[in-house]
């Protein structure tokens, strides 16, 4: 305390510091879960099983990357499940109507960006809390999805030109083993890490999330930062929706219902606080895999999906409780 010089932290990956991070706890839990999986089932460790986990978490993971921007901003986006369906239906209808598949994808992503823009503008211009805005748009986007599809499911027929190429995005495997969806998740995650931890937008996101008034008074465009987060969230939801369509060749109006809860759970388990200003992309990625592994183990053991829902809910509460406990212990130590 008595020295005036500010010491340098030399090693970029100081192990001790790493262990103090909030993510360390979740990561330890993830490792524990992994060991548990290996013990309860011999098939768990097979690469085919692990890759299938990767396949299953990819869509949730991509959405969670976008949701992290919103949550670090101190906001919430409940509409991602509906945006997912809206983008998938838009792309599906375009392909069925004979639009080239690349253009159809761009239409789907554009719809996602538009949905994010609507959410973001309502939050920053009307000053309505994002919980309310996106609770509304969750319903509106879902309704629009049902309206434009007339409630009928869309099945991509292999005869339609371009469908074979399009479905490769979701069903294909790199080197015949690594699911394409996992590759897309890795790409989106890499961009997410770079933007949140290294870019000016990322810096401003933490500033705005931690203290919007202080951020405003140092000349940060708070509205632009919040708007960007909702647009990113809409875009990632749309990317997932398009991948979902490609994976199943099928989408209907109610697809993706309730996805927002899994997505937000992953971000929260990964250590971001709903108050904003804290959380990291790595934490989110760990949270995504934690949920994925948990469901996989329950699946392997043949536990009903009803129980899976119960367990996931309990894990969220336990994760946040453990974090609170750890933080309190730190201040008392």
């Amino acid at each position, binding site marked *: *305390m*008595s*020295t*005036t*010089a*500010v*010491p*340098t*932290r030399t090693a970029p990956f100081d192990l001790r*510091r790493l262990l103090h991070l909030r993510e360390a706890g979740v990561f330890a839990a993830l490792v524990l879960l992994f060991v548990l999986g290996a013990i309860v089932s011999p098939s768990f460790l097979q690469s085919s099983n692990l890759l299938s986990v990767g396949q299953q978490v990819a869509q949730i993971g991509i959405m969670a990357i976008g949701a992290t921007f919103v949550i670090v901003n101190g906001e919430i986006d409940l509409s991602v499940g509906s945006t997912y369906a809206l983008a998938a239906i838009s792309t599906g209808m375009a392909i069925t109507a004979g639009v080239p598949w690349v253009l159809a994808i761009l239409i789907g992503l554009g719809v996602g960006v538009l949905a994010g823009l609507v959410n973001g503008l309502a939050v920053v211009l009307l000053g309505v809390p994002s919980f309310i805005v996106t609770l509304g748009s969750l319903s509106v986007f879902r309704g629009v999805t049902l309206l434009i599809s007339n409630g009928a499911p869309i099945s991509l027929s292999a005869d339609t030109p371009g469908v074979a190429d399009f479905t490769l995005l979701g069903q294909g495997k790199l080197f015949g083993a690594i699911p394409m969806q996992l590759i897309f998740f890795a790409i989106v995650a890499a961009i997410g890490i*770079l*933007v949140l931890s*290294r*870019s*000016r*937008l990322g*810096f*401003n996101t*933490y*500033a705005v*999330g*931690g*203290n919007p*008034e*202080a*951020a*405003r*008074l*140092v*000349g*940060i*465009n708070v509205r632009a930062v919040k708007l960007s987060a909702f647009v990113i969230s809409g875009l990632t939801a749309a990317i997932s929706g398009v991948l979902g369509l490609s994976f199943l060749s099928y989408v209907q109006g109610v697809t993706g219902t309730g996805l927002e809860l899994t997505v937000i759970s992953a971000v929260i388990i990964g250590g971001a606080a709903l108050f*904003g*200003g*804290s959380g990291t992309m790595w934490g989110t990625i760990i949270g995504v895999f934690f949920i994925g592994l948990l469901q996989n183990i329950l699946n392997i053991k043949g536990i009903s999906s009803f129980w899976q829902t119960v367990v996931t809910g309990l894990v969220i509460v336990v994760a946040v409780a453990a974090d609170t406990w750890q933080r309190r212990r*730190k*201040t*008392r*130590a």
Partner: protein
Amino acid sequence: MSTPPSLAIRVEHLSRSFGPVRALEDVSFDITAGEVTALLGENGAGKSTLLKILAGLQPPSEGGVTVFGDTVTAFEPSTMLGRHGVAIVPQELALLPDRSVAENILSGIEPGGRAFPSRRQMRARAVALLAELKLDIDPDASVRGLDLATQQLVVVARSIARNCRVLILDEPTSVLTPAESERLFELMGRLKAQGTTLIYVSHRMPEVFQLADRIEVLRDGRHVGSWRRDEVTPEQAVAAMVGRELDRFSSRAEQRAGTPRSAATPALRVADLSGPRHESVTFNVAPGEIVGVAGLPDSGRVEMLQNVFGAIRSRGGTVELGGAAYTARTPIASVEHRLGYVPGERRAQGLLTTMTVAENIGVLTVKALTRVGLVRRGEFTGRARELATRLRVKTASSDTPIVNLSGGNQQKAMIARWISIDPRALLLDEPTRGVDVGAKAEIYEQLFALAETGVGILCSSSDLPELLTITDRIVVMAQGRVVDVVDTRTATEESIMTAATGAVDHTSAA
């Protein structure tokens, strides 16, 4: 040291560690019943930790506390208040904003049934208590509408309603005007007369020497001084707090006596500026000049500063920076124009609360250090660290969360932030609020150094001795208008207060 029967609290070998940090180390002293004990120390000296232990908000790591002969076994707020009768008036008042004064005073100890308290009895009890304390507060008013000073008095009444025998006041006057402080002191006097033991923390020496019977000093977690008031001088007490003799700070006006005022274009010219709670405000700040703004809290001086910076909507008037008109003012444009603002509400408006010291200092350099969207981290941290060293921000590392720093070091970081963009003019509101004596002197030196480089500084403060020490001229505001502009060399606290309270109105002295 005095011994029972008049012993209220005995603190024995109290220690408290936070990880490797020793916040309190082997502190022992007695607090005599019915006396006012002032607890002094710089920020980080361990005062808050000691108070938190006494209020039951934190257990000690070692040592013990005895209250009126009873050894404290459970350090919990309910036990300390319910069983031992020790209550605290914290700096952050925790009241129920949407409930009435009466409900706040008696919440938790409502008369009548527990589930359905009697409103009539409650109001009667509150009225009786307020009358007993001679407090003129409407028991039916909702707390949200009360000013901070009155809210504080409500918290005191709430503690008395719970029959507290020892009342701890944590820097109660740091947010009060002199008149409001007087009102609190009168109340403290009445409580003392009724036999309540008071423990009181303040940075303001004149107050301490007016109120306290005993003075206890902490430094770096240790108990370094203990006197009766008449055994010690303010200089000795301050010396014990900071661990060295503080040179009496010669005022800037004295130092600069005879220096001709710069005839250059003003760094900042404000003309006819109007906005919320201020009307046609006009003044200049020359390059290298430090101009103070004095006035009561409702004088509109804070709003005026915010208007100049562009943080709130203006209703008219002009602002010029270095002779060039600055219109369409916003915080974003002010940063581009190199006009800085250090807000008075540090926690609410200054700190980026979830970020590190380096990030708080460097926030204004982010834009310049961004290449293709990415911030150059190495250069960013390097510059922030340089500024932290220059302003003597004491921190374990540049990666330390800003909220872990003491008030003085946080404030130095807030000033360092604006130095990073080489400001032409700097606006400050309450630059040393919640800052200890040592850091205060350092902040003054930094402001002088900044003025030396030609920056025009406008500094609003409710601390008149501070304005008299650091400024060249003082603009006095009352009810939104400039009522006087005085040369600091000829000004006194009394002359400023007279103008600020509206007793005299003359705008000719400029």
